[in-house]
């Protein structure tokens, strides 16, 4: 039945059974790939939440800890948390330095707590937070990524060593 030509029976149709068989095989492979992609996405390997979606980089006991999305999506909302160590304040201020190029690749919607001021340097921005009786333990950046591909960022407390991390922004 499979290789029989219908022309012999007076039915002028060219169905090419070998093509069909190959398509069905390719289709099945494609379905498996689709299933794997969905599984990866469900686990967070493609971003937007899930066990693989976020990462933490620690800067040691005197440094900050940065919690970020491994795979943010272009122009989608993303959150970045910077945890400050207990002794972060110096003369009533906490100074958080950020790599300027990293900030340039995103739109920042809000910084919580809002900084008292932002000092701009050639290749870094310094977010200055006032501390009174209360001391900030965490700074939350809510942002939208504005570039695609690999980005690397760095945060540091005024005198400390920078904590570096990379993200991959999906288009």
């Amino acid at each position: 039945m499979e290789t029989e030509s219908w022309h012999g029976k007076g039915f002028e149709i060219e169905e090419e059974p070998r093509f069909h068989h190959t398509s069905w095989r390719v289709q099945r492979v494609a379905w498996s790939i689709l299933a794997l992609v969905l599984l990866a996405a469900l686990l967070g390997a493609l971003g937007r939440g899930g066990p693989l979606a976020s990462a933490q980089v620690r800067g040691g006991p005197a440094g900050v800890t940065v919690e970020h999305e491994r795979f943010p999506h272009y122009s989608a909302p993303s959150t970045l948390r910077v945890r400050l160590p207990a002794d972060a304040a110096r003369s009533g201020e906490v100074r958080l330095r950020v790599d300027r190029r990293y900030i340039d690749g995103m739109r920042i919607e809000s910084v919580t707590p809002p900084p008292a001021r932002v000092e701009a340097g050639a290749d870094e921005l310094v977010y200055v937070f006032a501390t009174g009786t209360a001391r900030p333990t965490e700074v939350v950046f809510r942002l939208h990524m504005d570039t695609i591909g690999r980005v690397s960022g760095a945060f540091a407390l005024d005198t400390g060593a920078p904590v570096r991390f990379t993200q991959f922004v999906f288009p």
Partner: protein
Amino acid sequence: MESVLRGAAIYLFLLLIMRISGKRSFAEITTFDFVLLLVIGETTQQALLGEDFSLTNAFIVIATLVGIDIGLSLWKQRSKGFARLLEGRPLVLVADGQVLTDRLDEVRVDVDDILAAGRELQGLERLDQIKYAVLERNGGISIIPKER
């Protein structure tokens, strides 16, 4: 530039995913298929335009989609192999009143679909009135009745 890339990416992705899903999913408009088509339409809308809702962007994206469509149809015309890749070939499902069950299984069509097509297209009542039933390239089923 981004407009052209977005338009091209979405067109090609949809083409690919429709081909892998097996064309039946998009040919017959049952409620199931209709909902799917509707939701896919809504999903692609934002991705096609991004955050640029200007007329220019809309024109560029539409021109890209139509351009690719024209390009593919020209290529299809020149290359039989490419046409086959893009659209598939018809497949006989019933021959001389005999249902080719393993083929039906592969394309996920059941006898009910064939009987429905028989009723709709030829006013046939029974399977034994069907000489040939063919799954066409567009996903619909065509019926050739037995001579009376």
